[in-house]
Each structure stands twice: as C-alpha cells, then as structure tokens.
C-alpha cells in the first residue's frame, strides 16, 4: 500500500463524533450558560450596579462557579457532553487556567502552578492583548487625523 493510498484510507475510515448530537449539546449548554449569565446580569443591574460592573460581576460569578466545579472534578464531565458549549464561554477560559494550576501543583507553587497556570490560556491573553493594541493604534491615528471613535 502506498503512503498516499493509506492516508486516503485513514481519512475515509476515521470515525467522527456524532455531529448532530454534539451540535445540539453545544448549543444547549452554551445557551444555558449565557442565559444564567443574563439572569445574573439583570439581578446585578437591579442592585443599582452600572452596565460595566454588572457584566464584570457576571464573569466573576461564572469563573468562581467553574473553579469550584473544576476542583470537585465535575467540570470535565459536563464539558465532555457540552463540548464548545462550556469551552467557548468564559467558563472554558477559567477551566483551562484552573485545571492547569491544579495539575502542576506537584511541581511546586512557583515552578509548577505559577509557571504553568497559563499553559493553555496564555495564547488567548497574548493575542487578545496584541489585537487590542493594534486596534488602539488604529483608534489613536483616527483621533490624530481628527476623526471620532
């Protein structure tokens, strides 16, 4: 069997996850997390917090919830079903940080937890920041040229 033939055979016979089911679950779980966020947001707004602070509180709440579920070993069980439903919301970001912190505890709190806490989520912060700085430069030049942003 030639290499090309074999690669074609592998590609053809590779089983993919049940697409409909994963799509449905990611939509449901993602939707539920966002709806929970919205309920919390409206609740915080009722407490006369402004829009921004209410959103920040929602994020904090979801991060703390994720932290507890991750610590108890429940998060990855939910995530197995939910897929992108838990991984695209802020819960996925929080879980990738907290699971790394937990995992590398055996290498100590400085070289393990401290150094490896962003081993998965690091790129998100790096490229998020880089993209925001590029946007900032564009905004800055627009204001220099007398435009409004």
């Amino acid at each position, binding site marked *: 069997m030639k290499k090309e033939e074999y690669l074609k055979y592998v590609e053809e016979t590779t089983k993919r996850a049940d697409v409909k089911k994963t799509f449905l679950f990611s939509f449901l779980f993602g939707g539920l997390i966002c709806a929970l966020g919205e309920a919390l947001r409206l609740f915080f707004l009722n407490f006369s917090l402004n829009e921004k602070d209410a*959103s920040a509180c929602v*994020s904090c709440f979801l991060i703390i919830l994720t932290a507890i579920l991750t610590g108890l070993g429940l998060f990855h069980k939910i995530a197995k079903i939910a897929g992108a439903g838990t991984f*695209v919301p802020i819960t996925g970001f929080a879980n990738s940080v907290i699971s790394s912190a937990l995992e590398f505890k055996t290498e100590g709190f400085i070289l393990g937890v401290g150094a490896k806490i962003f081993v998965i989520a690091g790129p998100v912060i790096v490229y998020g920041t880089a993209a925001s700085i590029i946007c900032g430069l564009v905004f800055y030049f627009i204001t220099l040229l007398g435009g409004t942003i």
Partner: protein
Amino acid sequence: MEFLVSLIKAFVVGGLICLIGQIILNKTSFPPAKILVGFVVAGVILGAVGVYRPLLKFCGAGAAVPLTGFGNLLSEGVKEAVKKEGFLGIFKGGFSACAVGISVTIVFGLIIALIFKPKRK
C-alpha cells in the same frame, strides 16, 4: 415577561456562538487553544468595527459571556483609554478592561490548587 424574553435572547445568541465553536471543533483538527485565540481576536475586531455593541445591547450576557465578549471588552477598553489618555491609552485600555476577569481567575486558580487534587474520573 421582559425578564424571560431577555433570557431567551441570551440563550439563543449565546448558544449560536458556541455552536460556531463546535462546528470549527468538529470540522477541523485545530487544538482548542487555537480556536479560543480565534474567538478572542474575532471579538476584538468585531468590537473595534462597532458590530459587537448592538449585539450586546440586544442580548446582554448572550454576547458578553462567550470569549468573543472578552475580546470585545479589550477593544472597548482600548477605545475608551485612547479617548481619555491618547497614546498611552493604547497600552493601558485592554488590560484594565479585562483586569477583573483575569485576576479572579488567577486567584481562584491558586485557591483551587491549594485545596484540591487532580483526579482521573
């Protein structure tokens, strides 16, 4: 009633954003980190060109909770900082806007690492 409508809006939009993630996850062999970076950068760009704000207004947490919302937060922050502080704002805005989320994540990462042990099941 208004409360319920808001929840449904958040559910549908948030669910759809996650669904896009799942489609990318299933159809490509991108590792999760690449997809997350894609979502954040997309959020930054959508925020910068002004698409995200109306979406946020429409569905609240439905757009804020997914990582694109995190990206939007970064570009909103930069926008405001540039308005207020000019050049220095370029480097200040993003981080200050997402400071709460990241700090809470780090602190809870440490707390959880102190309390729990990783398990197989």
